[in-house]
């Protein structure tokens, strides 16, 4: 017997809105991390000198090398939690499980998109802290039935407490 789901969002799920999902601290960013990132995202062309030529960068408005805005300082290993960076296990209901809440009865997930507001640039030596929170739920009925849209907010700050970026990511589940 097929039952039509009227809502995926339970009272238990609403109660944890705003909860912290995770906190990660990077190792200090190295010039070579920035250089290699720039090579990868501009390949096969040479990346801009701002990302690898210290003398050139010192004469720029940035007064030194900076990282490309979308650079990820958390790849491979993190300082806190110490060790290998934890990759997502692709569990469509991992968010609620991590908060000790009964997850919605969804089976599939899609990356719905990303929205980033940038603050100060990341530089060699910076230590970045990332804090993720569960921001919101909304639902819409679509071609594949009832769809649950989950927004997560992720704030990065540097060692001076300056905001580096604010990311809102959307997960679509059905």
């Amino acid at each position, binding site marked *: 017997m097929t039952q039509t789901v009227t809502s995926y969002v339970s009272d238990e799920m609403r109660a944890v809105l705003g909860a912290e999902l995770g906190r990660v601290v990077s190792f200090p960013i190295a010039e070579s*991390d920035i250089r*290699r*990132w720039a*090579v*990868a*995202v*501009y*390949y*096969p062309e040479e990346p*801009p000198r*701002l990302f690898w030529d210290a003398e050139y960068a010192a004469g*720029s*408005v*940035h007064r030194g090398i900076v990282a*490309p*805005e*979308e650079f*990820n300082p958390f*790849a*491979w290993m993190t300082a806190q939690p110490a060790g290998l*960076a934890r*990759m997502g296990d692709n569990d469509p209901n991992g968010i609620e499980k991590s908060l000790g809440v009964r997850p919605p009865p969804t089976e599939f997930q899609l*990356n*719905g*998109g*990303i*929205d*980033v*507001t*940038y603050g100060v640039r990341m530089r060699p030596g910076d230590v970045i802290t990332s804090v993720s929170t569960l921001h919101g739920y909304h639902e819409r009925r679509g071609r594949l039935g009832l769809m649950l849209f989950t927004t997560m907010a992720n704030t990065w700050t540097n060692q001076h407490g300056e905001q580096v970026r604010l990311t809102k990511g959307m997960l679509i589940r059905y």
Partner: protein
Amino acid sequence: MTDAPASGGPTVLGRTVGQEIPTFVRTPGLHHWNRYAAVNDEFVPIHMDDEAGRAAGYPTAFGMGNLQWSYLHDLLRQWIGDDGRIEHVHCQFRSANVKGQVITAHGRITEVRPEGDRHVVELEVWTEDQHGTRLAPGGAVVSVPAAE
């Protein structure tokens, strides 16, 4: 940095509202995806192995959405230069970048406004394949110095 107003509105870095900024073009394949996997710790079978790509419903292995995201930033940086600032970017990941596609990142100016000593420019941005299919549509806000 900012030219005199042209017919139809202010001009920033040689472009005005309604015009496209210079495109950023790549033909990504395993050489690109492996390099990106190496810096972003993103070694996922669908990005490395054609069989895994086919099992996921695509004709080949396919590139990372995050690399499309980087190409949109490359597009903006190429236009605004070192003095420009990327303030905000958003996009959706609608279609996969499979082998053999020529990916072009585009930006079209939708608004220019002065803000302090800078000009703020809003753009529609997107990546598309050689057939005009949009892979990652979105928007961006950048700012550039209003005058040297």
